[in-house]
């Protein structure tokens, strides 16, 4: 019997849960922790590629249930509203079964104006704003290419969203510096009427090869931070919704545990489809798009203009990638006590931290999964913040 990659059964594909489209790799700012390698490139997705993208997605058979379309992997608001109006019309034309598709933008909010707000409200588009807290935290990492802080312009965007009554969530990247400032972050969110927050950790990914969170003593500092922040969030009136608590509490309270063979959105083939501005596509972690490795070559598996899902999934390229990721999930299942609540760590983190997808624990696991689950459990047992919000946006 061969030890090589095993064929992947068609039933293992999808269904599509998250479609990540890169309208442009360009970003108008230059965050110190960014993993996007081409963020200075002003390429943009052409109308023809957009058309091919939607044709490919709906022809693939992956779109079998409602899914989220996330415009990301660059600053999406760099392109004009007209681009997205055309894209929305195209999406409707190709979505002949009328599947509910929730559009979402992850943005730094600096380019928002009344026209954008009108479009977002009209199309009921979800907005995630990237903001890292008070200026002494935000402006340390989120700067222009000239080195200027960007908080003032991000807050102008947030004010506009409030004025125009466009609901939004916030994603904050936690660096080591931020772990000393839960109260200051809490005050910041309250001051700016931010009701829903998600914390990402500064990850080691792609060109961002080192994280401030790799220092000694970080796991305990992270737990102290999280404990204090969640206590503050739960005691606020109205409570501040925190994705890390909600998802962890959901996993703990639902009673559903992930067993053998279980996979999550990020490590299940084709639950996520990532499509670059040139039509190249990948699956698994969105951060893999546009990157490559000595072992696998480009993580892009094909192009919507030329490659069908069937052809790509039959390729050695995909099968080797899927096999390595599957082995990594199995290792997680065998070795990690948190697996029933987690389902295996994000492949991109495994690859960039451990050098292979066939590996287990990462810094991201220790902080973003294990610490969040442990602290949430502590707080649930203490009766703090026992009401979790089950509906959360993608991480």
């Amino acid at each position: 019997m061969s030890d090589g990659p095993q064929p992947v059964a068609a039933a293992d594909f999808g269904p599509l849960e998250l479609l990540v489209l890169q309208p442009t790799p360009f970003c108008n700012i230059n965050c110190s922790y960014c993993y996007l390698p081409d963020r200075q490139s002003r390429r943009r997705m052409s109308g023809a590629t957009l058309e091919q993208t939607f044709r490919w997605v709906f022809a693939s058979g992956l779109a079998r249930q409602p899914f989220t379309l996330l415009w990301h992997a660059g600053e999406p608001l760099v392109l004009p509203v007209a681009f997205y109006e055309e894209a929305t019309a195209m999406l409707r034309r190709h979505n002949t079964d009328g599947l509910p598709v929730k559009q979402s933008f992850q943005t730094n909010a600096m380019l928002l104006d009344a026209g954008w707000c009108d479009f977002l409200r009209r199309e009921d588009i979800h907005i995630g704003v990237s903001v890292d807290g008070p200026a002494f935290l935000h402006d340390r990492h989120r700067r222009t290419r000239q080195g200027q802080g960007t908080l003032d312009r991000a807050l102008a965007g947030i004010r506009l969203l409030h004025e125009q009554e466009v609901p939004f969530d916030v994603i904050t990247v936690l660096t080591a510096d931020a772990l000393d400032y839960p109260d200051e972050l809490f005050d910041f969110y309250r001051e700016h009427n931010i009701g829903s927050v998600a914390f990402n950790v500064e990850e080691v990914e792609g060109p961002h090869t080192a994280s401030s969170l790799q220092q000694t003593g970080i796991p305990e500092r992270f737990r102290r931070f999280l404990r204090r922040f969640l206590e503050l969030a739960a005691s606020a009136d109205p409570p501040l919704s925190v994705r890390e608590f909600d998802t962890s509490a959901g996993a703990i309270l639902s009673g559903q545990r992930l067993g053998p063979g279980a996979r999550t959105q990020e490590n299940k083939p084709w639950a996520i489809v990532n499509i670059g501005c040139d039509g190249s596509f990948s699956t698994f972690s969105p951060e893999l798009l546009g990157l490559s490795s000595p072992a696998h070559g480009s993580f892009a598996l094909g192009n919507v203009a030329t490659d069908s899902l069937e052809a790509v999934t039959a390729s050695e390229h995909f099968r080797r990638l899927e096999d390595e990721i599957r082995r990594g999930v199995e290792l997680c299942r065998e070795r990690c006590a948190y697996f029933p609540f987690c389902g295996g760590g994000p492949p991109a983190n495994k690859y960039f931290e451990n050098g292979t997808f066939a590996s287990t624990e990462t810094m991201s696991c220790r902080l973003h999964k294990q610490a969040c689950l442990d602290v949430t459990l502590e707080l649930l047992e203490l009766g703090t913040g026992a009401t979790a919000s089950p509906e959360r946006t993608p991480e």
Partner: protein
Amino acid sequence: MTLLPGCRFAVAPHFHVPADWPRRLRIGAGIEEDDGRFFPRGPWRPLTAEELGLLVSDAAGLAPPDLDATLCLFQLPEHLRSAWWQLLDEAAAAGDAGLAGFDVFGEQLGEFLAFKGLPVAGEARCDVVVSKPGQRSARWDPEANRAAGMSCSLAPWVSWPDGASARGPGLWGAINLGDEETSAVLINLPGKELEAELRRRRPDEPAAADIGELAERFLRSYPNYPVARLLLGPGEGYRLPVGGLILDGYPEGKQEPDVLLLIVQEEAKPGPAS
């Protein structure tokens, strides 16, 4: 008389407070005695570069014991300051002379300070002192019904020098709860330096028995010693160094009543020797 090396000021680690020391610090002309009480004497002037060098420390990397010997500036988060004013509003609405929830507020404050690495060890209490704008002192002598003036932050009965080697009974620190800037005025010299100066001037005088006596001797003996004035913005506070300092609150020049939260470490006063 010139400023002598002594206690330094720094922004406490794990806090983000714009230090702006040249704006925040002033130097007075000396000390004025009024009927056995001591008050700072103006005019107030900016510090010279040399004086700034003597008074200000870079907190980055400061750790005990240096940190314990430093006056640490910190900032109360807005949610805690709001909680204080909400307590007052609720008490006013209820016509309540007491302040329901103040104990909980004190616990929350203690948890915050502990998280930030400024724990208040042992038994402590919070007092809120409200002073009239323009008052010469934030300390009030209720028996004499007059401003009490500058004194040592440690309880005056603490024995010298043994009792001043640890944090203890007396003022731990203070926080400006108001919306307007206020000031603290202080002598930057810890007990050992006070004693050394007194010995230089009066080598034959017997040592002070307690902190209160040591402080009073110095204030009386050095009326021209420059008093440092530390401006505190809304929500800003300070933690005093181990061994304490001679100080007072200073609501001079204010438009609104001064609202100062004092964090006081407690210890049972020893009874008379049997």
